[in-house]
């Protein structure tokens, strides 16, 4: 173990290597590490923000959905009401129409019946007059017995 100039040479070599490391090696690595660290923390923050806004969006979406649902229910109710009203209206209209038709039909029937009856009565009275004329021939004249005949026709 002898100490010689190697010691000084090694000290110089060490200073050179430390200087190289200090000047060229260490700073870029640390800079890169810090930059990445910042990038990662920024990324994490952004992710947290995105998470928050997602939560917000979810809440807004739910609110909107609820509103839409209630609106839809209201519209449905209205539509149902309107539909049943239309049905009711139609039903009552039809009832009225049917009644009207029935009424007019029964009037017509009555009229027809009356007409037929009148005609029948007319024919009957004619037949009776004819027959009676044939039976009585001269004894009864149309002019003389008008009143009697009329009464008879009325009785028929």
């Amino acid at each position, binding site marked *: 173990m002898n*100490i*010689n*100039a190697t010691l000084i040479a090694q000290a110089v070599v*060490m200073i050179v290597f430390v200087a190289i490391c200090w000047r060229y090696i260490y700073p870029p*690595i640390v800079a*890169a590490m810090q930059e990445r660290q910042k990038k990662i923390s920024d990324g994490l923050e952004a992710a947290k923000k995105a998470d928050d806004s997602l939560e917000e969006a979810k809440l807004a979406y739910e609110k909107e959905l609820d509103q839409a649902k209630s609106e839809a229910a209201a519209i449905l109710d209205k539509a149902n009401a309107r539909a049943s009203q239309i049905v009711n209206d139609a039903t009552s209209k039809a009832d009225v129409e049917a009644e009207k038709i029935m009424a007019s039909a029964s009037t017509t029937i009555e009229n027809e019946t009356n007409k037929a009856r009148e005609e029948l009565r007319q024919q009957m009275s004619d037949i009776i007059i004819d027959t009676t004329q044939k039976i009585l021939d001269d004894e009864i004249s149309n002019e003389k017995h008008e009143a009697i005949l009329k009464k008879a026709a009325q009785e028929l």
Partner: protein
Amino acid sequence: MASELTTESYISHHLTNLTCGKTPDGWTCNPYMVDQMGFWAFHVDSLLWSVLLGSIFVLVFKMAMPKKIDPNSVPTKAQNFIEMCIEFVDDNVQSLFGSSKNPLIAPLALTVFVWILLMNLMDLVPVDFLPVLAGHIAYALFGFNEATGGGVEWIKGPESLYFKVVPTTDPNITLGMAFGVFVLIIYYSMVVKGPKAFLAELTLHPFGKWLIPVNFILEMVNFIAKPISLGLRLFGNLYAGEMIFILIALMLFFSSIPVGIMGFGLHLVWALFHILIVALQAFIFMALTIAYLAMAHETEEH
């Protein structure tokens, strides 16, 4: 020419550095001239591995990061690994250094940690592998040729070349780094505390102003002990670990077959345990470097 391989020569071969230095005859790497070199000699193997591993650290940390950093891209696996290292070092700097901001501390701690870890890891390469390889390469390239007289005179065979591969088992390397830290401690003490306060800390401390010489001696011991203990702790741990690997290797080569087989088992166990030491010592060196520099930044009075 190859001397008999004995236990002693095996061990000493593994504990001797490839040393190049200045002798009266000029610069040489001849191991037989080491005694004449004096202070101006360099452990070429330690420095080579130290620079090589430091360059690996720099290149890996530079290459793994994409040229243009795009925060939107997913980091690669290598990038993740590097960022993990940086975060580990940063955490330690945060907890030891605390509030005061000094942009040099974290890169310093990172360099020291990764570099020492790599140097320590060389201990896990089997002890003979790289020295023998280096010896053969050196012999093939520069070997002394008796017939022509070519080549390098002292490389007479592959074993002529000493080659240690674990820089941190060389006290010059560990103390050199501790010395670098020491310089930084003094520099920041001067800059942050101011020379006056720094001097006051060294002289007025345990006993007040009437015993300044005593205070100075005590504080100086404390002050000098920091880098020396820092360097020697790392050296001692790794040297001992290396030593045990060498001794286990001896069991394989110089003993009977049963002992050799036991040696394999021991080698495995020690290598596994040594992984802990490798990482722990790198961590301790880094942590103490941060702690000492944090002390240099403390401005409050005791």
